[in-house]
């Protein structure tokens, strides 16, 4: 099957101060598919995903060498408006982090800060986003209650709805289920599978089973190196590298 490449990572090296985190990563991300970045703690998978929406800019002494192209455009060039970029490439974090505001305001925030004030329009976006995040039925009668009153899994889906509300092309998931129980995890994974019809999705996980369940492509990172990447079925059945095989069979990680 032919797929469009939406993000090209070319020879990316990244550093925190003098410490090198990512080493010469070259990786293509395909549009409207789920790509997993898998690997043990400290392998650089979170650093890599945070390069894609330039979240690492917030970290003092962070440095990136090499190129990351989004639709052919260098993400780190001077012409890129970082706020526009982050609207195109949304993110869901490891720990559910809803704002300490109402459910409605959480989802509406992203479009409000773009200057949208039309109440009906915002209502529509909120409903649509919550529906896409499979949360509408659960919260439609309590939109103005605090988002913090929801369960962990619901909070994470609020965060997904919040990301969807600004109409991104790509959604980055940074270990979205690591703070959730198995039931909530299953719901999020189901949602990811549903969302890939319309969005490009990148999931960071150290959970091999999760990578196998949700992703079309899997990249295995280890100590800052990209060891292996390919279609998920292939990586899991015939891994080319010994380290991938050892990780998948639970010899380390």
């Amino acid at each position, binding site marked *: 099957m032919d797929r469009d490449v939406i993000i090209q990572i070319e020879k990316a090296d990244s550093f925190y101060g003098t410490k090198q985190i990512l080493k010469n990563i070259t990786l293509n991300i395909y549009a409207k598919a789920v790509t997993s970045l898998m690997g043990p703690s400290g392998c650089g998978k979170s650093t890599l995903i945070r390069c894609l929406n330039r*979240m690492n800019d917030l970290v003092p002494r962070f440095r990136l060498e090499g190129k990351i192209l989004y639709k052919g455009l260098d993400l780190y060039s001077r012409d890129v408006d970082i*706020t526009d*970029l982050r609207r195109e490439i949304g*993110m869901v974090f490891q720990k559910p982090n809803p704002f*300490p505001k109402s459910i409605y305001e959480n989802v509406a*925030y992203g479009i409000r800060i773009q200057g949208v004030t039309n109440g009906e329009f915002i209502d529509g976006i909120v409903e649509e986003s919550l529906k896409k995040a499979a949360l509408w039925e659960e919260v439609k009668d309590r939109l103005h209650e605090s988002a913090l009153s929801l369960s962990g899994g619901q909070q994470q889906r609020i965060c997904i709805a919040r990301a969807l509300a600004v109409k991104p092309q790509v959604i980055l998931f940074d270990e979205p289920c690591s703070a959730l129980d198995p039931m909530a995890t299953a719901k999020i994974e189901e949602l990811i599978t549903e969302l890939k019809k319309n969005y490009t999705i990148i999931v960071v996980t150290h959970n091999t089973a999760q990578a196998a369940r949700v992703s079309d492509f899997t990249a295995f990172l280890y100590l800052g190196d990209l060891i292996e990447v390919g279609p998920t079925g292939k990586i899991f059945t015939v891994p080319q590298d010994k380290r991938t095989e050892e990780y998948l069979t639970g010899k380390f990680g």
Partner: protein
Amino acid sequence: MSKRKLDKRMDSVFKAVGLAVTLFGLLVLAALLIDVVMDGYQRISWDFFTSYPSRKPEQAGILSAWVGTLWIMLTTALLAIPLGVGSGIYLEEYARRNKLTDFIEINIANLAGVPSVIYGILGLGLFIRLMHLDRSVLAGGLILALLILPVIILTTREALRAVPSSIREASYALGATQWQTIRHQVLPAGFGNILTGIILAMSRAIGETAPLITIGALTYIPFLPANPVAFSPESPYIHLSAQGFLDPFTVLPIQIFNWVSRPQKGFLTDAAAGIIVLLTITLLMNGAAIFLRYKNQKRW
């Protein structure tokens, strides 16, 4: 005796000593409070609040003192809150860490500990001698504002630092700018703690005497600062005036200080009554601060 037994005994000894030390402090405080209340309570009446100071102790009141305190507090708040919160936001959120900001930071922390009389002397030189503000409400407010500015800056920074980075990240990830993130997420989340800090700082300012005496705030004021708002039956009906800020003033602690130093016994009763009023205000402010802090113990 085994080591274990000895440890246990030390435990109970320490508990007893700790309790005694705590009680000692509380008892002394309680004794002082009771003494003041016993001395002053019979002077507390409507007349006491609506009379100017007088040569006759039984006719003397705190009208000019509490109105003056209100004026000074208003001036201090108007000056210190925007400056303090603004600097706090800048230092915490915008300023880069370098030698200069480190230097500023150390100095702010030091300023918070400078004795208030020093601020008074600074004010005397700067606001009165140099800027010719005279012994006005504005001069007093400026000095107290300077005095509490470092405290407000420090508590603002602490309040902002307590807002978890996950909230900021979430906001940035949705395409918010830094100012939008601060304005819509960080400030509201830290608001309760900032307010608590402001109230505590103000309650420190309300009891300050030394710096105001240094600039020569008068102790006998039989009039009030000009009303900022006046009404008239003809157009334009409402008259606004800033004259009050330039009028002389007295405040509660100065009035109390003045009464305490009088030889007549009756003035001591007046002083005690004044202390009760001042203590009640401070207590209410601190109570409000504690309540706010309690209410804002958010779990993220």
